[in-house]
């Protein structure tokens, strides 16, 4: 079934890089949170993924599949937030 398909991406961050496999329907913020914890960021933070190929910031509620991300593509993870 299409909804069972999975996608493998490389997620890079300031704290390291790791390969992750998610169901294609995973929302961007769920993928970001899972990767954040795995890469050593504190749980419960606000994180964002950027598609390095296009520079596009993934919207939190959109599923990964809606971006047509290719298997093996690289995403960048960071904390959201602003200066003061």
């Amino acid at each position, binding site marked *: 079934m299409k909804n069972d398909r999975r996608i493998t991406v490389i997620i*890079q*961050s*300031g*704290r*390291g*890089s790791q390969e992750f496999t998610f169901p294609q329907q995973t929302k961007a913020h769920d993928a970001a949170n899972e990767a*954040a914890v795995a890469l050593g*960021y*504190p749980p419960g*933070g*606000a*994180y964002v993924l*950027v598609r*390095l190929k296009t*520079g596009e910031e993934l919207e939190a509620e959109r599923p990964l599949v809606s971006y047509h991300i290719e298997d093996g593509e*690289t995403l*960048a993870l*960071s*904390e959201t*937030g*602003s*200066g*003061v």
Partner: protein
Amino acid sequence: MQEELEAMAPLAASYGWDVVPDLENLTVSAEMKSAVDGQIYVVEARCDGYKALPPFFEFIHPEDGERGTHRCYPAGGTFFHSTPCICVQWNRKAYQDVGGPHSDWKMADWMTSRPGTTTLGDMFHLIQREINNTSQYRGRMG
């Protein structure tokens, strides 16, 4: 410091940063390019006392090495203060103790105020994100 630089190496390669560590003098600089207008920025982190204290970030002009003036800094968004400095708790220069705008922050608390941005890689990455932000980045400050 070295461990953090190694951890950020894949990200640095993806963004094309030219990272120059000077471990003897506890500084590291990264040259990065804005995806919005192609401007090149050089940002240096001075890490004496790190991590008891946050690094001291300074922008350096890529053409003549001038340091810390408006023309060295990007503008726009909420991080780049007209002092000029990167106005965030992980930058020592933002604290009034060293001439920054904030008298209301305690430098000793920097690690807990933004727990998702406590490594050099996190910090350089946020700077890159800011200069790539099409809705907020405004080119050079001066």
